[in-house]
């Protein structure tokens, strides 16, 4: 299973929770809005953090996708 995160840039309002909880997976731009780092691939060891970031986004702007 590979896990990928994606930030919906339309929904993101810059609460910055994802970057605080999973700085390995999310970065903020000059306005403080979030995007996934690289192509959003999540190393196995960081899968929990990906879901934690999703569960703490007030705008529900984070998607975690699992593919076989």
């Amino acid at each position, binding site marked *: 299973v590979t896990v990928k995160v994606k930030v919906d840039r339309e929904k993101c*309002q810059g*609460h*910055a929770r994802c970057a*605080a909880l999973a700085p390995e997976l999310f970065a903020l731009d000059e306005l*403080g809005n979030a995007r996934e780092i690289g192509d959003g691939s999540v190393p196995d060891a960081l899968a929990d953090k990906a879901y934690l970031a999703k*569960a703490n986004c*007030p*705008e529900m702007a984070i998607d975690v996708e699992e593919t076989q």
Partner: protein
Amino acid sequence: MSARPPVNDWSTDFDHLDPRWVENPYPIWEELREKCPVAHTERFRGVYFPSRYEDVRAVAYDTEHFSSRRIIVRETPPPRIPAPPITSDPPEHRPAKNLLLPAFTPDAIKRHEPGMREICGKLIARFADKGGCDAAVDYAQEIPVRVIAVMLGLPEEEGERFRKWIHEILEAGITRPDILMKALGETEKYFQAEIEKRRTDPRDDLITQLSRATIDGEPISEPHLLGALRLILIAGIDTTWSAIGSCFWHLAQHPQDRKRLVDEPELIPTAVEEFLRAYAPVTMAREVIKDTTINGCPMKSGEMVLLSFPAANRDPKMFPDADRVVIDRAENRHAAFGLGIHRCIGSNLARLEITVALQEWLKRIPDFRLDPSAKVTWSEGTVRGPRKLPVLFG
């Protein structure tokens, strides 16, 4: 404040200035969520009060029917007081917000952290050996006012004057338009003078930075500049002061939570999110500008909506065990800083201030409790937090 007719029915006649609401609003909101999720009152010339998370969210996201041009419920027809971007609607909102955002990202805020620690340390040194203090007056209220002063480039010692204006604009001004107008006039004169000083003597501060700012290549207008500065002054102070105060109010009464944060300081940021959820200080408002319905409840154009993020944060459908403070709550998508385009610009700043305030205090004063011989008092209106919080150490 004028004497207010007592409330008999919160569903049809609520009053957010009623002493019971000011003292402890949570049971009232719980009852409303069950019985009448969108309450209404004829007071304040007509106001709706959604108490469920989903309804608060729906209003916050709907800028077509709900305008931010009025964001405080007042008793008399209020003057329009622009403070962009908080009072802006699309399409003006986005450029006005983007102007301020870069100064408030986590990275931009970080450079103020050493200063915050120093401020907290100095305040604690004043009372650490005295056996007790008023955690709201001697500590919480002093922190954000100094941080904001430093960011704007104003003397730290002006705190008293800023707090007076904030009280007049956000509390006393709800029922007294004369007090409101006087305070607004004073802040305007004050900032005009500060802007003028920087024309010949530019500094590394927000006033200088914003007075040079442009939107689409055009310098921003003087009313826009004054409004934005007033917003930063007002929104950044009693909000964070209230949030810090509520953390201490909780910890003074929950020794197990306190001990855990002393033993596991790495848990403090998680606990701060939970305190923000459970004791969210800020209730905003919107003006209905087109008739609509929320959760089946018709809303009439011209009336106001109290947008209670604190009530949304206590909705058990969204947060299991919503009335219990769980300092290690892992899933916490609370709405303390709002939802949608008006997300609080200062959220990163506030989070850092609250965290630093707790860290520095708990290092020096791990044990404290409410002073049983004194009374805790709460602010009223838009921002909720303790205004007197006498505690004893040890």
